């Protein structure tokens, strides 16, 4: 586009840009600047009173550190466990409550949304008690006194995933319900006339038309799974034997326990690249041009 035409276009849309400016400002200050600053720190041996250029040394260290790869594998395990179960649960609950009348539907949505607004710290404390070896609720119910759900390498990560799946998904249910509500009723009427059962209607109409919402939730769910921190920090500290250490927790430890701010920034940049790539792949493979 020639420069003059571009300038005219910009001038024509000037009010839109003006209204976008505050959001853009916040986005720049709280996202772009930290990312750029993180990129700068990642090539420095950063100290509070001095810093030294080390080039790609931090990246070299991170990419050859077994603990980083372990935490990446744990993150993948966590995401692979949480995201599908989370979406499945939300879809199931949304499908079950959707035919209800509005007040009852809202009641269920509120009930499922409540854990979403509860502090992750409180939730973690409650689940710590549930999983506690000598006097935990789970061991009491299963009659397995002394079993350390969070102390066993086989059960620690599934225990974290289970907690997240049970407590999470409130906002997902609300979004899926909203998306279900926006599907035109004509489709279902036509299907009923053609003799389709409720299950067939759900599989052939609801699910395909929910695809854009599901794609959004899948991407956001994956990103938040890669950023998991609070549960790990409060419940396992990455243990037992590093079986629940995640990149988010490793970055935190590296920066704030070991004062390796450059290394932590390099880890954060690698995490950024991974999440960005995963989101791109998901959009490319699952994107759809559904319109209704």
């Amino acid at each position, binding site marked *: 586009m020639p420069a003059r035409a571009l300038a005219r276009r910009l001038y024509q849309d000037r009010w839109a840009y003006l209204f976008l400016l505050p959001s853009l400002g916040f986005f720049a200050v709280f996202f772009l600047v930290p990312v750029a600053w993180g990129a700068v720190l990642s090539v420095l041996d950063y*100290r*509070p*009173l*001095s810093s030294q250029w080390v080039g790609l040394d931090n990246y070299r*260290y991170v990419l050859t550190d077994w603990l980083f790869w372990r935490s990446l594998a744990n993150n993948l395990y966590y995401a692979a466990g949480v995201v599908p179960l989370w979406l499945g649960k939300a879809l199931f609950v949304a499908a079950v409550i959707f035919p209800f009348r509005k007040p009852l539907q809202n009641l269920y949505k509120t009930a499922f949304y409540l854990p979403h607004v509860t502090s992750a710290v409180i939730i973690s404390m409650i689940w710590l008690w549930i*999983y*506690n*070896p*000598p*006097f935990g609720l789970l061991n009491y119910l299963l009659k397995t*006194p*002394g*079993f*350390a*759900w*969070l*102390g*066993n*390498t086989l059960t620690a990560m599934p225990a974290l995933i289970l907690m997240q799946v049970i407590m999470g998904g409130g906002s997902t249910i609300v979004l899926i319900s909203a998306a279900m509500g926006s599907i035109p009723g004509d489709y279902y009427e036509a299907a009923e006339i053609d003799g389709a059962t409720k299950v067939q209607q759900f599989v052939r109409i609801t699910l395909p038309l929910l695809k854009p919402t599901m794609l959004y939730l899948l991407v956001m769910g994956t990103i938040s799974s890669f950023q998991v921190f609070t549960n790990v920090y409060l419940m396992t*500290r*990455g*243990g*037992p*034997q*590093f079986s629940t250490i995640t990149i988010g927790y490793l970055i*935190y*430890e590296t*920066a*704030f*326990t*070991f*004062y390796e*701010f450059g290394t932590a920034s390099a880890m954060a940049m690698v995490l950024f690249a991974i999440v960005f790539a995963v989101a791109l792949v998901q959009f490319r493979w699952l994107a759809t041009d559904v319109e209704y």
Partner: protein
Amino acid sequence: MRSTRRLVCLACGVLLGLLGTLQPGPALAEERPITITWWINPWRIAPPDLQPDQAPTAEDFPRWISQEFMKRHPNVTVRYEVLTNQGFDQKVAAAILAGNPPDVLRPINFRQEWVRQGLLEPIDPYLTPFDWEDFYDYALDEGKVGDHYYLFPWNNSNNGMGSTLLLNPRMFAQRGVALPPLPDRAWTMDEFMEAARKLSYDTNGDGVNDYYALAMSARMDLMNNLAWFHIFGARYVDEQQRRFVLNSPEGVRALTWMVDAIHKERIAPPGAEGMGIYDVINLFHQQRIAIGYGGPYEIGRIDRYLKEGRIQEKFPAHVAQFPHFPEIGPVAYHTSGGFVVFKQADPYKREMVMEFVRFLTNPENMKLLRSLLYVTARKSVNEGLYEGYEFEDEIDVYLRAIEHGIPYFGSAELDTTPADNHFIAMLEAAFSRNRTPRQALDEFVAQANRLVFRGR
């Protein structure tokens, strides 16, 4: 022309320098307004103005002592902040990174890294001859890096963790087990095991013990776990401070004993791999274990928890030494805590900040630690501090125990923090029997040596 200008500049510089030396020293007499920021984690010390029936909060002591200092120095404003224990180190790290640390900090863990990064003021010029004589050497050494000292000593030990045990005499009496005798309450490992076996029992006949002698925990319990290793004669690092040596035969014996205590002897409950120190303290408070970890301070905690409704019933507790092998002798963890001063650009403010820290650690104010049942870092204060006091015997046992004190983590110059997570992982592996004690220790030592001594 240029050289003339240089000469003039040089002459001016010399003149200004000379004038500087003629001015009165760092001028405490300046008395211009300054603000001192002070961060401390919750210490529920009862200040003198607290009503006797009132339970002290974490704010009471910093409020009172700040006000007292401000009364003496009206030009100074002390802004204290009580930080929670959870995330304490991270908040400090964030403040340092932001270039805005407090002037005075009572760190939970003294970090030599701060000295290496040039963040702290040395305190040795501010220690009087009396201070040098009065502070325990090991308390001063806690903050020694190179030839300088960076930590104004205050409290002695850290709740007694790794130094002494707490016994529930009621549970001992119920099982007909005699307490180790005063004045030392010391016992050999054989005596300890005999008692521990009697104190662990099943009440409902399902074959699983409901009450245990003690508990082990893998997480956040470095000092108590290291105590068991030291009892067997193992050491964390070698004498030259050049490598981790916990996988010595003594270390393997110690870890084998710890694992056996859970799985074979069943004197400690299963699940240690998933438990932390607070789980162990809770078990002691619930009187499910007869022996807990800690010193006199933990007795005060029982009272506090009772007032807060966290425990249902008050019960007595006695301090006792960790058991020992006669051929090795008793051991306890030696450590100390205190205050650090972050770098000050303004010499006058530096003087006043140091004055404030000296005020915090003077013998009179240090005596306030008595309300927490803490032993102090000053010899003169400890003499007679608990004379005639309800818990005099417990303090005495504690003082006798720490006479055998050694620094478990090697010299103060050595920062073993990077190995901590691997130490925990080693215990988790051994307690859950994922690894034999030998395998777990070998893996730990390999990782720890790589991280601490070889760096990257």
